[in-house]
């Protein structure tokens, strides 16, 4: 809860910087603020405090909000170029920080009101940021599509909440869970439709097939730094919110939604990975790969056992670190070489070994090759799904990740085995630090995964 207050204050400070003109200092202030928040957030571990029946800061909330804050810190280092434009600098800082506040509300709500507000606090700044290149038509288009489809899915969420309110007379998650228990899982029709409408909205937010069609366009059109934020923080927060609602409150009515989610997960894994193969733009390829990763995380939700929370926590951490590194390298390469096709990466290992190694480690992690973090992330998810008897789904997921290996290795091969006449790319000190950090973190999480897994 300290985190929520500190981050809101930090956002307001960022806005004040415009008036009191200390813009130059803002970048270090925000980074220091985020690190402080990260540390103070850990103090709430094991306190399990209930805030007026609206938010519950349990260990689940602390763990996921720490991931969100940590990844945002890495993201700030990655996105330093995003904070070079003088004109809208403070807005960018404030919008990102307020979006993070929304993410923290989404991981700690225990009332439908806070779920709705959290999603909106996260989404509205993201609409603005996606459209933040005002002169660029594709950025406008991305922002507009994101807004229309985001608002559309919020409509479904609200209709679902209204129907559940109508049958239970409450927005409180514990009361709703009790309602399901008292009906022994045989819920009335209105409640049933409510759950399915909320499911549709959440599937929209995590961009799983068949509600994924907005994601590739939005990811491609938005500025690369904003895309990285959407692929990591927004996705992690959306999954945590999904888990909090379906893995605990609606778990009793599992028969209503698990079969639907089974089909969605299988489709997401196949469509995401197969479509990623045929993309020429690397940014769009990463967008489809991010859709596919949502499919893996859905597996843990379907499993609905004691591994669910810890495996999603580990997966989202491993996936976010991998995405930050790959979008970081992609941003640098695409800016200096003028395009983002696979050919832009040719010969990168000779000219910029650090970028090439960072990208390789990130892609190996996303593909799930040992000894990187991604391997154990997939391993835990598959174990969880297998333990609950979803053998076929695990088989589909393994086949899908084999397809994944193909398109990730295409970039690795281009970097190491293809020649290019391009000159070396200048990399700033901050970016060097970031890439060394992501390499170390990915390998360390791959070697000692127990540390995170035992948390939840």
């Amino acid at each position, binding site marked *: 809860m300290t985190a929520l207050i500190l981050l809101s204050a930090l956002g307001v400070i960022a806005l004040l910087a415009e008036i009191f003109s200390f813009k130059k200092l803002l970048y270090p202030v925000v980074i220091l603020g985020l690190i402080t928040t990260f540390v103070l957030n850990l103090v709430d571990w094991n306190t399990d405090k209930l805030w007026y029946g609206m938010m519950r800061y349990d260990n689940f909330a602390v763990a996921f909000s720490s991931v969100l804050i940590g990844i945002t810190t890495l993201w700030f280092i990655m996105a330093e170029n995003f904070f070079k434009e003088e004109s809208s600098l403070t807005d960018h800082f404030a919008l990102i920080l307020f979006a993070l506040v929304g993410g923290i509300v989404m991981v700690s709500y225990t009332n439908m009101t806070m779920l*709705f507000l959290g999603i909106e606090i996260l989404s509205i700044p993201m609409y603005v940021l996606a459209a933040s290149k005002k002169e660029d*038509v594709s950025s406008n*288009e991305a922002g507009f599509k994101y807004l229309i489809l985001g608002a559309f899915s919020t409509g479904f969420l609200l209709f679902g909440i209204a129907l559940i309110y109508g049958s239970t*007379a409450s927005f409180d998650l514990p009361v709703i869970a009790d309602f399901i228990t008292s009906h022994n899982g045989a819920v009335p029709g209105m409640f049933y439709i409510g759950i399915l409408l909320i499911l549709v909205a959440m599937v929209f937010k995590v961009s799983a097939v068949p509600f994924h069609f907005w994601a590739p*366009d939005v990811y491609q059109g938005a500025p690369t730094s904003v895309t990285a934020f959407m692929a990591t923080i927004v996705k992690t927060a959306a999954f945590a919110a999904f888990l909090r609602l379906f893995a605990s409150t609606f778990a009793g009515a599992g028969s209503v939604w698990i079969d639907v989610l089974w089909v969605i997960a299988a489709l997401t894994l196949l469509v995401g990975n197969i479509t990623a193969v045929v993309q020429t733009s690397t940014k769009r390829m990463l967008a489809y790969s991010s859709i596919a990763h949502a499919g893996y995380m859905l597996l843990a939700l379907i499993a609905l056992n004691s591994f669910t929370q810890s495996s999603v926590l580990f997966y989202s951490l491993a996936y976010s670190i991998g995405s930050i590194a790959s979008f970081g390298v992609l941003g640098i390469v695409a800016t200096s070489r003028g395009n983002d096709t696979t050919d832009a990466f040719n010969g990168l290992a000779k000219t910029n070994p650090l970028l090439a190694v960072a990208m390789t480690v990130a892609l190996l992690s996303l593909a799930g090759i040992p000894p990187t973090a991604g391997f154990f992330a997939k391993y835990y998810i598959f174990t969880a799904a297998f333990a609950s008897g979803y053998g076929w789904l695990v088989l589909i997921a393994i086949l899908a990740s084999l397809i994944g290996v193909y398109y990730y290795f295409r970039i690795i091969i281009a970097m190491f085995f293809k020649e290019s006449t391009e000159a070396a790319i200048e990399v700033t000190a901050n970016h060097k630090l970031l890439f060394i950090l992501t390499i170390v973190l990915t390998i360390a999480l791959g070697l000692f995964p127990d540390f995170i897994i035992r948390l939840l």
Partner: protein
Amino acid sequence: MQISINWYLLLSAVLFTIGVLGVLFRRNAIIIFMSIELMLNAVNLLLVAFSSYLSDSKGQVFVFFIMAVAAAEVAVGLAILMSVYRNSKSTDINSLNKLKG
């Protein structure tokens, strides 16, 4: 005569469906915004009806949250639409087709 809750449920379901169809089939961005507003207001109607039916005030408080957020969303939406219009001189969403793969 008391109007039963089912009629309210039916009315808001119909309004919501009209909103969904509007978003899916209309091509003008302003009309799409209006359709989204219709979806949200259908939810508001349902919440207020349930709130009165269950004699519980929480539903009405939720409606205020929805109204405030919807206003914020439309403000952002119209601002983005302005910059779309400035670049493409159109509010037809068929002109938004730069992103393909």
